[in-house]
């Protein structure tokens, strides 16, 4: 269980980068962008094919970010200049990306098992630092019997994800970032304050998908393969992470919301890990469960609100009734 949870946190931290991308579109831009299912794979595919062709893993990962950014920009273009509904623009791009991803990989699955990836490189550097021994010693002292093979990925990924979070926080507080946030909040206003909302939207959706592709590239390297189907349902997972995080950690400020999204992504992975422990749950059920989580999270506040309204009305009526009697 400990090992499984360790793995959940490890991949959760990477998926958090994807969730931050989803947060940017869904929450900041108010743009329900479905490109994600495709751009996640694009990230994995570009990284994998580049690595296989001898590109250094870090550069390959940067290529992946660029490809995701480009895909996002095209979705943004379709929506702003092509005046296509946001949902449809995303679906069109996602569908187009399926073919493009296959073209990039040339086969439905690419194995990276015998390749040098960011993570194998990391392990080599990390090997002689002694951090693993120290931390695992701690775990043993606490009574754990099976130990994680390395802490490198967890710690380094945490540093990277937190860095991305901090940069995002900064970006959203700059003059450009404020305008970007206003697009999701009051588009007409920010246009009347001389912001080019089309370009900002395009860049915003681009950045979002750049992050998604980065997550895809890292997941492919961590898992040792890129698969054309690895992005299915990714948007719902991203949404679930955002919603779980917001519910648990709040959204008072941007900095709070982004840390909430990261927490949400990790907790989502942990929920999945726990759920899969039950015998009657099969791996294939996870998408259904994720969808149910999102549906529940979207509906619950409305039900709660309706309840409160009803109660308020009943109270008002009771008050009036009493007044009538008194008079």
């Amino acid at each position, binding site marked *: 269980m400990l090992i499984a949870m360790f793995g959940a946190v490890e991949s959760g931290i990477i998926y958090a980068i994807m969730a931050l991308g989803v947060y940017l579109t869904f929450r900041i831009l108010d743009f329900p962008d479905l490109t994600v299912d495709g751009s996640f794979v694009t990230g994995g595919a570009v990284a994998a094919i580049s690595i296989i062709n001898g590109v250094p893993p870090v550069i390959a990962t940067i290529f992946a970010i660029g490809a995701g950014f480009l895909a996002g920009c095209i979705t943004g273009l379709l929506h702003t200049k092509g005046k296509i509904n946001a949902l449809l623009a995303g679906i069109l791009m996602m569908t187009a990306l399926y073919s493009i991803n296959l073209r990039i990989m040339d086969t439905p699955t690419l194995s990276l098992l015998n390749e040098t990836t960011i993570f194998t490189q990391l392990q080599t550097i990390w090997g002689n630092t002694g951090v693993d021994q120290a931390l695992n010693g701690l775990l043993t002292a606490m009574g754990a019997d099976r130990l994680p093979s390395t802490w490198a990925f967890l710690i380094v990924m945490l540093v990277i994800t937190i860095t991305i979070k901090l940069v995002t926080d900064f970006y959203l*507080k*700059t*003059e450009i970032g404020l305008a970007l946030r206003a697009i999701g*909040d009051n588009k*007409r206003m920010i*246009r*009347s*304050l001389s912001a080019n909302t089309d370009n900002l939207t395009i860049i915003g959706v681009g950045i979002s998908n750049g992050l998604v592709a980065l997550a895809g590239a890292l997941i492919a390297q961590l898992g040792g393969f890129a698969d054309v189907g690895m992005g299915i349902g990714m948007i719902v997972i991203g949404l679930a992470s955002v919603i779980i995080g917001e519910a648990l950690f709040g959204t008072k400020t941007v900095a709070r919301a982004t840390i909430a999204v990261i927490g949400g992504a990790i907790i989502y992975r942990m929920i999945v890990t726990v759920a899969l422990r039950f015998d009657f749950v099969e791996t294939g059920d996870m998408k259904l469960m994720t969808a149910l989580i999102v549906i529940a999270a979207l509906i619950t506040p409305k039900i709660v609100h309706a309840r409160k309204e009803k109660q308020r009305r009943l109270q008002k009526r009771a008050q009036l009734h009493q007044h009538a009697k008194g008079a």
Partner: protein
Amino acid sequence: MLDLKDISITFNEGTPDEKKALTDINLNLKKGDFVTIIGSNGAGKSTLMNTISGNLYPDVGDVLINGRQVVHLPEYKRSAFIGRVFQDPMAGTAPSMTIEENLAMAYARNKKRKLVFGVTKKRKEMFRDRLKTLNLGLENRLNAKVGFLSGGERQALSLLMTTFTDPDILLLDEHTAALDPSRAALITELTKEVVANSGLTTLMVTHNMQQALDLGNRLVMMDKGQIIFEVSGKAKRGLRVEDLLREFQRIRGEQFESDRAVLG
């Protein structure tokens, strides 16, 4: 300063819904002019404002600002030098952002937005000073989300944000109409002050005829997409609401018709 030449707009041309919203509009504003616009519902007042702001492009006609043709300049570019307050108090501010963030966005209006903090210590001081002029205590609530403010407070903030960078032209489209009378009076007062202090060239649509007479140095009456009556300076000062109504009847041969033609 602002030159409108032969502007015409027809909506849904060639369909049963065809509507001539503006016909041959000519209007010239000098720097510092404060023009109030009145007219019945559907007269084309908002359409005229939208044409100036770049929200709408006319079918024919020119819009010149300081001699520069801007008729095809998109709204976001024009808004660097045209400020606008909408009728809806919710329209001019971003509700889930704070007061200081909203002001920072307004402050960046006539500059190129950069990757630098929008709210800095220095700017905060300036925001606070400007907010004080509203006398609403907003200077102590810089970190409050604008969505929590009342309609009147939001409209006051919108007005401040719009005039923050001294736009060449200020457009006000019934910006007090959605407020209760005391709030509306407050916003009217603020409008008077800011226009006077900064000498802004202003176009203000109002359905309140008395207000249209009290404010500004010029008055324009519109009906069915046309400017039917103009008065300025001394002649305007002597006018009363009854005179305006009589004028309308004389020109149009019918009663001034507006469900909101408020007299007082």
